[in-house]
């Protein structure tokens, strides 16, 4: 039997794609609308801020001069090219962030309509109806591509409404959409490799993070945009040159790369059976090890792989961060204006510290993402129907929840410790003070736990009190990311800034540390967690 023979075995492999597409849109409309709203708010907010602070070309040129000399800022944003133009400045400021968000949107959407359907067995049901063999993946791809197209148009419209040229706005929107599409193709491949949707999402997200890291290092060491960033698809999307000098061929490169990945995914798809992965399943243990004797042991079994991956990723990212951080101080040590500007991102007077504060804040927010996902596991097990047999044994709900909460609260300490240590070591090697830097960066990383715990608490409260509204927790996390990113530029009013727990954290390293938030934030987290646990003990187990 040939591969193509199997693939197009049915006479119409795409039959029913339209109906499946409508179903997918029906299921995803709220989530996709929230994603689009995030992009619109982000773009409109930054555009307004930039317009207020840098209204004239002279202002922007002056800023560009400073930005070019500030690798720390370049690592977070992109190459400092064309910043004299209002559109160029905006594209530079939010381009990388938008591509990362579009990538996340694409990964989640694509995996939800491919591997999740397969893992839950819903695909069997769908495939038993007269739909073609390739209709379900085609519908998944179409809905994801459509989301990226809608995103491109929404972004372009937002920029035009903010007074930017239509041509450049369209190119910018298209670049973000093309970047998103590329990561949809990445997810299409990982969805074929792994039998578990979680693993497929984790792997694709890891690759997204790697792409960001590559361009962060590349741009920090090369302000004009040459070098390592060319190895990163996020770098490609940024270099399409909206508002400056459009490089159409980079769109071609992005689409070709996405097409190649989709071809790989297609070959993998038609070679395997429904429900299987590419790696053959191995036999497991005949008896459980004596340690697998409690729900906590089961929780450890379920969480340990993910936590190990996060920790390793944080260690690598920290080592890279420490390696470039020092050059910040070297480059701009004689430019007091830049010191001022960055000091607003951070808290201390040392420029390199301010840079580390800004980066560590991102690690802290991502770690909160890990914690929220770990708490979600409580609900996910309930929805999947796996909580029921557990709770029918002599296992109380609190102990069941604790088996996951333990990882949500203590778990993030490991990746944060890893990033603190790794940054401290590489940064220390360059400054010649390994012991000192490791100590203060470790402390800086661990302080972030207070913010992580607030989100873990919020997620627990949602699981216990309003499980169907859990999406709000993710919305809150994205809102805090936006507040952190936009706040210093936009000069948001203090009460908005105060909504994010991360605003209250001491700006370490370098800033002064007051004990109040380090007591108050955990107290809030404990109160939220307690409320969630009480709710969980009182409510019905609801499989849907």
């Amino acid at each position, binding site marked *: 039997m040939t591969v193509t023979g199997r693939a197009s075995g049915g006479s119409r492999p795409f039959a029913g794609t339209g109906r499946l597409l409508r179903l997918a849109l029906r299921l995803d409309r709220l989530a996709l609308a929230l994603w689009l709203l995030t992009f619109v708010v982000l773009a409109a907010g930054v555009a307004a801020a930039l317009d207020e602070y840098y209204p004239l070309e002279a202002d922007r040129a002056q800023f560009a001069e400073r930005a070019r000399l500030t690798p720390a800022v370049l690592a977070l944003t992109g190459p400092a090219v064309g910043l004299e133009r209002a559109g160029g400045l905006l594209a530079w400021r939010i381009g990388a962030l938008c591509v990362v968000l579009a990538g996340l949107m694409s990964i989640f959407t694509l995996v939800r309509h491919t591997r999740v359907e397969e893992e839950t067995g819903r695909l069997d049901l769908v495939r038993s109806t007269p739909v073609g063999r390739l209709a379900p993946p085609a519908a998944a791809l179409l809905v994801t591509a459509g989301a990226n197209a809608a995103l491109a148009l929404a972004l372009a419209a937002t920029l035009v409404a903010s007074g930017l040229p239509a041509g450049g706005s369209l190119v910018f929107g298209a670049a973000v959409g093309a970047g998103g599409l590329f990561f949809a193709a990445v997810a299409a491949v990982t969805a074929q490799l792994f039998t578990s949707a979680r693993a497929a999402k984790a792997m694709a997200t890891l690759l997204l993070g790697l792409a960001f890291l590559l361009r962060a290092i590349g741009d920090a060491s090369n302000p004009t945009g040459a070098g390592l960033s060319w190895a990163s698809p996020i770098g490609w999307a940024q270099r399409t040159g909206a508002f400056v000098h459009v490089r159409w061929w980079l769109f071609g490169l992005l689409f070709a790369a996405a097409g190649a990945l989709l071809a790989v995914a297609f070959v993998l798809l038609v070679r395997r059976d429904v429900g299987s992965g590419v790696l053959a399943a191995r036999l497991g243990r005949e008896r459980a090890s004596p340690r697998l004797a409690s729900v906590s042991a089961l929780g450890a079994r379920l969480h340990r792989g993910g936590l190990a991956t996060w920790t390793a990723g944080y260690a690598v990212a920290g080592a890279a961060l420490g390696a470039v951080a020092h050059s910040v101080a070297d480059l701009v040590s004689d430019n007091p204006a830049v010191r001022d500007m960055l000091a607003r991102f951070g808290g201390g007077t040392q420029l390199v510290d301010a840079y580390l504060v800004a980066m560590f804040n991102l690690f802290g927010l991502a770690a909160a993402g890990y914690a929220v996902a770990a708490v979600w596991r409580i609900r996910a097990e309930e929805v999947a*129907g796996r909580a029921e047999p557990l*709770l029918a044994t002599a296992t109380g709900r609190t102990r069941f929840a604790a088996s996951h909460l333990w990882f949500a609260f203590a778990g993030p300490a490991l990746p944060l410790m890893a990033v603190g240590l790794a940054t401290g070591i590489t940064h220390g090697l360059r400054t010649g003070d390994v012991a000192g830097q490791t100590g203060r960066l470790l402390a800086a990383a661990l302080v972030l736990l207070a913010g992580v715990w607030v989100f873990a608490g919020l997620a627990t409260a949602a699981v216990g009190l309003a499980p169907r509204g859990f999406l709000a927790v993710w919305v809150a996390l994205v809102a805090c990311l936006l507040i952190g990113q936009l706040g210093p530029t936009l000069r948001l009013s203090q009460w908005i800034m105060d909504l994010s727990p991360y605003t209250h954290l001491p700006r370490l390293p370098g800033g002064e540390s007051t004990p109040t938030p380090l007591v108050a934030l955990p107290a809030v987290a404990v109160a939220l967690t307690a409320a969630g646990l009480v709710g969980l003990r009182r409510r019905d187990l609801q499989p849907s």
Partner: protein
Amino acid sequence: MPDAIALRGLRKSFGQTVALDGLDLTVATGEVHGFLGPNGAGKSTAIRILLGLLRADGGEARLLGGDPWRDAVALHRRLAYVPGDVVLWPTLSGGEVIDLLSRLRGGLDRRRRDELLERFALDPRRRAGTYSKGNRQKVALVAALAADAELLVLDEPTAGLDPLMDSVFRDCVREVALAGRTVLLSSHVLSEVEALCDRVTIIRSGVAVESGTLRDLRHLRRTVVAAELAGPPGARFTPPPGVHDLAVEPSPDGADGVLLTCEVDQPGLAGLLRALADLDVRALTTRPPTLEELFLRHYDASPNGQARPAPAR
């Protein structure tokens, strides 16, 4: 000895949906009790209240002498549960799941576990994600049967088992019953219920419409009567009260007579026989209803199903 399960007037709604509308259910200690009813009748809901997974809106529930919601953890040491739809952790092997669930319940009888694995012909080394539906069901069954539990709560436990495994399951339940343990068995398989259960409760739309031994049920219910007549009964024949589903058709064997069929309640039987005596009866057969007929009548929710719990005559 107190009853293993006692539900009185149990109520549970999910928003607009009323799942249990005053359910009564009594399961005596040591009996195998069948729990039947059409899809959506509320069987799983009742079971999940018994397990403390759902909280009842009203009524009274006692399980092994305790409160199923408040004393859940303590009670669960003494029972084992097989859900109708078994979902397992895809990365754990079947053997690991069985050991884990047994240990969470309070202990593992290795010999019994291995013996059950053999009887059910289950390979414990396969990862749960790669089991077939029937094999997933077996994992849950072995974990439950290996437990030394006073009460087994089984929610459609044989859905997906092949006939051979079905008979293994029946043997296992008989052994459990012989050991004096209690079983609550929700099932749609009538032959299984007939083979295993001492008593049954039939529920519909969240209320019990019948409860008793199968013999009681059959005797209490109607008799099926078929009479071959030489000609149509004519106007003189008026069906007495208690006769249902009366039908008169041409004789199926092609003769010139007609076949009169009906069902009759026990109190109406004598009246029907008197009325038939006036007709030219060539042949007469009576038999108790089959189990299928019994259940179909209870399951049928249409107005002429005539199985309303309190029919207005």
